[in-house]
């Protein structure tokens, strides 16, 4: 996978959370993911097509997403309900769109699909290609989340 494709997703994640939810996320060290299990309680996945095909996902811990959405909407939500799932879909959409804009400025024109949201204990994330998946762990004051990016070679 072209490593140039990773950084735009990292910077888009920081930008979107800061602008839309006033949340400061701290990126950890990226690693190659070995299995399909999600490292969170709710995930959003979106397909990306263009010079190469792939997908991006976001997996949030319960506390982390409840705080992010509370900050976005100015109201507390106690459980992972439809509002939370909807917000995860929109965050997936915004982060992939923002990364797509940055990739476009580098000369890579991608299209993004509509996001899918998955919840439940030990749920699995299926990326749209069989290439290795790069996971970027993030930490916030409210808990961790993980961004995954996978593109065909």
């Amino acid at each position, binding site marked *: 996978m072209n490593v140039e494709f990773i950084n735009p997703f990292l910077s888009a994640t920081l930008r979107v959370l800061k602008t*839309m939810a006033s949340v400061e996320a701290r990126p950890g060290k990226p690693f190659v993911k070995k299995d399909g299990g999600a490292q969170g309680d709710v995930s959003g996945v979106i397909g990306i097509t263009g010079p190469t095909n792939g997908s991006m996902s976001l997996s949030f811990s319960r506390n982390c997403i409840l705080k992010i959405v509370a900050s*976005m909407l100015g109201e507390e939500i106690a459980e992972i309900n439809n509002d939370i799932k909807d917000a995860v879909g929109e965050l997936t959409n*915004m982060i992939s*769109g*923002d990364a*797509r804009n940055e990739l476009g400025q580098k000369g890579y024109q991608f299209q993004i699909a509509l996001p899918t949201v998955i919840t439940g204990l030990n749920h699995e994330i299926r990326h749209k290609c069989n290439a290795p998946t790069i996971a970027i762990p993030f930490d916030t004051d409210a808990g961790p989340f993980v961004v995954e990016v996978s593109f065909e070679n």
Partner: protein
Amino acid sequence: MPSAIDFDQKVLVVDDFPTMRKLIRNVLKEIGFHHICEADNGAAALSLLQSEKIGLVLTDWNMPTMTGLELLRRIRRDQASRDIPVLMVTAEGNKENVVEAIKAGADNFVVKPFTAETIKDKIEHIFRKRK
């Protein structure tokens, strides 16, 4: 400089994501609008445009069934709604999209993520230009 925005106008927010509609509604209230209605798809938006007196439309681009661009084209085709200002809100801010939206008659364009200040500036620009 005093604001050119007419805060008495009713604003229609079109987005398939309820969270985003709620977020934009909050931003519009923060800016100073009191009359806000919502539609979760293009057809519902067109129906509201016929039944309500709408003074400004904020629409998402990437929606299933009818995209924001198609909604914009339909608004501009209809005699009754053709002069209503439309602000496109989208996650995809590439040059082609901006050009396509402006050609179709969008008054302005906001790329997500956005701040309340950005939305206010864009709306201010629309009202100033139309005065």
